């Protein structure tokens, strides 16, 4: 559905250079620290940031050649951009009705009502959570085949985050061919939603892994210097020293569980991976 090959975008103090793929029916997560390149990647896929080199293909076509009909098949929620703050939901409903052939007015209005969004209130008077919910409802209201969600849950409380994640889940259950690209720096959101995850750091993909593998096979070993020296380091990806000892990231947790019964091994979490993979200590 989406194929990025050697996409390069160069700014004065930042260079993006990535390759990635989104297959039909897959939920792909992008994680990384602030400024890692998540939004630039997403904007390149949407064709609103032009690549300096490489190719971005969406629906088997270069993104710059997408027709209006093909763009109708993409649902987008951006973290920092949306409809004008001087419109209300009734206005947006009328606009979407004319914008998308497959727009489902009932679905849109019902979901706005379920989420407690006032249809007559101007967007500028909405809370952060309300705006985020509306952005996702807009993205899923026209039967898109590809959903692109940039930080859809950023800055929200647990309740609002769960509401948004539930909306996305329900939407995906309706049609298993639908694909999603979702970026977030809230790792638990991605752990519960995505099939695979790309880690971006300083404009490069430093790890691409199935989410299930991260949870099942990755782990962090916490050892002291003596144990570390005796440790078989074949499956250690990264190490990091701190005042309490040495942390070792492994992608073969089971090996160490079986062979080193006395060491502490924490289950793999996306947050641990981010911290370990993006740290300079080695």
């Amino acid at each position, binding site marked *: 559905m989406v194929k990025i090959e050697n996409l390069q975008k160069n700014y004065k103090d930042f260079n993006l250079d990535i390759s990635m793929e989104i297959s039909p029916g897959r939920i792909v997560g992008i994680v990384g620290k602030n400024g890692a390149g998540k939004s630039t990647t997403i*904007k390149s896929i*949407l*064709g*609103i*940031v*032009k690549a300096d080199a490489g190719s971005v293909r969406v629906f088997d076509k270069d993104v710059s050649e997408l027709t*209006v*009909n093909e*763009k*109708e098949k*993409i649902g*987008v929620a*951006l973290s*920092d*951009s*949306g*409809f*004008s*703050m*001087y*419109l209300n939901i009734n*206005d947006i409903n*009328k*606009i*979407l*009705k*004319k*914008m*998308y052939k497959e727009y489902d007015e009932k679905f849109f209005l019902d979901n706005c009502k379920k989420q407690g969004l006032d249809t007559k209130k101007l967007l500028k008077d909405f809370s952060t959570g309300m705006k985020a919910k509306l952005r996702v409802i807009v993205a899923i209201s026209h039967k898109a085949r590809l959903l*692109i969600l940039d930080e859809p849950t950023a800055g929200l409380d647990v309740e609002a985050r769960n509401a948004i994640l539930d909306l996305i889940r329900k939407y995906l259950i309706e049609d298993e061919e639908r694909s999603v690209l979702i970026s977030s720096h809230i790792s638990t959101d991605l752990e519960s939603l995505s099939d695979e995850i790309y880690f971006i750091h300083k404009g490069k993909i430093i790890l691409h892994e199935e989410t299930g593998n991260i949870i099942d096979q990755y782990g962090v070993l916490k050892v002291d210097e003596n144990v570390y020296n005796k440790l078989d380091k074949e499956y250690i990806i990264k190490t990091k020293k701190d005042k309490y000892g040495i942390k070792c990231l492994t992608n073969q947790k089971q090996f160490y569980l079986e062979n080193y019964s006395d060491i502490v091994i924490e289950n793999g979490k996306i947050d641990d991976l981010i911290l370990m993979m993006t740290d300079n200590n080695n």
Partner: protein
Amino acid sequence: MLGLLEKDFRLIMQRKQSLFIFLCVTIILGFSMDGSFVVGYMSILGLTLAIGTIGYDEFDNGYPFIMTLPITTKIYVIEKYIFSLISGIVSWSVGMLTFIIIGLIKNNTAGRTDLIVGIIFIAIMIIMMDIMIPIELKFGAEKSRIAILFIMGVVGGFVILVAKKGIEIAGEQIQSIIETVRKMSEFQIGMAVTLIVVLITAISIGLSTGIMKKTDF
């Protein structure tokens, strides 16, 4: 395209109160000012309001999302011209209507010259639109005001220079052009003006599309 027109119409309608005030001012001007001033005033007002929707799009980082909608940069640009033209012509019509009605009240029936002046206002309005839209797209709502002043200054200076030097260098040729225009029928002048306006609009649309295509959002 229809979705974008709907969006811009709804954005303009957010300023209902301002529109009402403008309408009151139009009526007052219609009574107090002589001639067709009210027609020009309304045309420019309608145009400015419509072009102001570019500012709404730009405000609060709205462009990235708008460009993900099922449109292309070319559709976005053309819609701005169509919307500005519709808004300008609707306002022009209100101005003309006010002018005629007030004329009737004052017992000054609008003549053929007034109608021609009214039509000239449409040409001026379209040329203003052709200048303002690319500037607004290139520099954004805030900087474009300064840019428009600067460009008007440069153009004004250029016109004065050409008028002075042009007569010195090519006085006879200019005189013969003026003579040719004088000999033309109203229909011929109308066609020539239409052609010039269409040409300027085509160049303006080309410039605006180029600006938008080069922009990263």
